[in-house]
């Protein structure tokens, strides 16, 4: 009984949160609702006995949405409402309804066709982490490694893009050196 109550409660909360995230024109509301929705989704993992995935959902998405906040901070005055440029409303509503419908069909079709079954059914809920590890490093080793390589590429690209003065450390310099560096920068700007 508790499971059913929890499921409907969190289903309602999640849908409400994502609805707010889509419809509001206030950046802070949207971001907070998104974060809340992501965290509420973890409840479904907990209900299903996938504790590890539930906790990972919280850890990953709380950090990821935190980064979105940082972008919000940089690009908007988050205390003001964003004036959205709204084009043809009929097209927007039509396309989003179509997309949502397609997702439902894609997910629901195998369930209706009745040929969906767990490839690696969880036997013992207390060995959650071990089982995830087993599957990751046997069956899904290649996708796992490819994802790792992609993340590495992204990280190096980020370092290259951001690290123009990586060889300098303001922490290790004394005041005079910092002032000299600033002077040089000024001179460069004046010349160019």
């Amino acid at each position, binding site marked *: 009984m*508790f499971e059913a109550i929890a499921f409907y409660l969190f289903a309602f909360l999640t849908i409400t949160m994502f609805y707010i995230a889509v419809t509001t024109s*206030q950046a*802070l*509301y949207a971001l*907070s609702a998104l*974060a809340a929705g992501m*965290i509420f989704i973890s409840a479904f993992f*907990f209900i299903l006995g996938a*504790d*590890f995935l539930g*906790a*990972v959902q*919280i*850890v990953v998405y*709380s*950090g990821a949405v*935190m*980064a979105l*906040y*940082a972008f*919000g*901070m940089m690009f908007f005055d*988050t*205390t003001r409402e964003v004036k959205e440029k709204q084009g043809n409303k009929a097209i927007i509503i039509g396309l989003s309804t179509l997309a949502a419908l397609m997702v439902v069909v894609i997910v629901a079709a195998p369930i209706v066709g009745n040929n969906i079954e767990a490839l690696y059914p969880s036997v013992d*809920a*207390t060995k*959650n*982490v071990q089982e995830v590890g087993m599957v990751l490093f046997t069956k899904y080793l290649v996708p796992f490694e490819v994802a790792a390589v992609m993340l590495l590429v992204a990280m190096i690209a980020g370092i290259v893009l951001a690290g123009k003065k990586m060889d300098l*450390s*303001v*922490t290790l310099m004394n005041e005079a050196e910092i002032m000299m560096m600033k002077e040089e920068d000024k001179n460069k700007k004046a010349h160019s």
Partner: protein
Amino acid sequence: MEIAYFIETIIKIVVILLIFSALAGIGTYFERKVLAFMQRRLGPVNVGPFGLLQVAADGIKLFTKEDIIPTSVVGRIFKIAPVITAATAFMAAAAIPFLPSFTIFGYEVHPIVADINIGILYILGIMGVGLYGPLLGGMASANKFSLLSAARGAAVFISYEVITGLSILAPIMMVGSLSLIDFNQYQSGGITSWIVWSQPVAFILFWIAAFAETGRTPFHLIANDHEIIDGFGTEYSGMRWGLFFIGEYANMFFISFVISIIFLGGYGDGSFLGALGLLGKVAFFFFFFLWTRAAWPDVRPDQLMWLCWKVLMPIAVINIVITGIVMM
């Protein structure tokens, strides 16, 4: 059976909430007294014996002060931010075993709300979510200094989350479980079996990161003192500000519990002495938070980032690699 379990859980939750809300208040008293002692002052002395009732006086003040909501803030987010800090701090406590299980009136009580088998991950994740409080509070306040403090808070959080996770990975590899009770069981053989002896580096790293996670001096960047104002809390008054405070102090207590259980043997074999030992360790770590605040200045944000990414993170990774080689 299910109803009994339900009632037991509710009672546990209420007890933990009450005890740690009260402890947060008493924690401020201890902080003032300890800081005063170390800085050769008196601290609170006027209200009650030894100034003990200062806590009650503060409480009355916080509860009765007008709850000001400035006109240009984002109302709902501004109101909900302190609740997030306090609520997540207590949610994290759900997976912490506070004492060994004991029998009362013939009924065995496990002083842990939910013994989920990924306890540590859950606690760290929820504590991470706790930083949404200062972040949202700062961003919704329509105040430049609050916004700056929120930005610093997000930077510190995202960086030090890495250290916490990496440093704790080595002990997890040794124990082979994410449940705090399993950690305790692993070390139940007395002082020599404590993980701190085999993982001293991870212990120090986790301890350092704990200061960043709870936002305490020397990593107290979310409310920078040299700006004279209170960072993200500038626009808050009354009990909303008090909730931030309760969240911070509850977090300090909970992280002290986590450090003691993971690295220092927790409650040991589960005897009465072991339980007292756990409380003693927690008291020491809490005291250490205050001690550091009295002894050290805040570090600059760039020094903090330098320390995190160029010193602590490589050490943590090397520690994991060495642990892995030794275990193989």
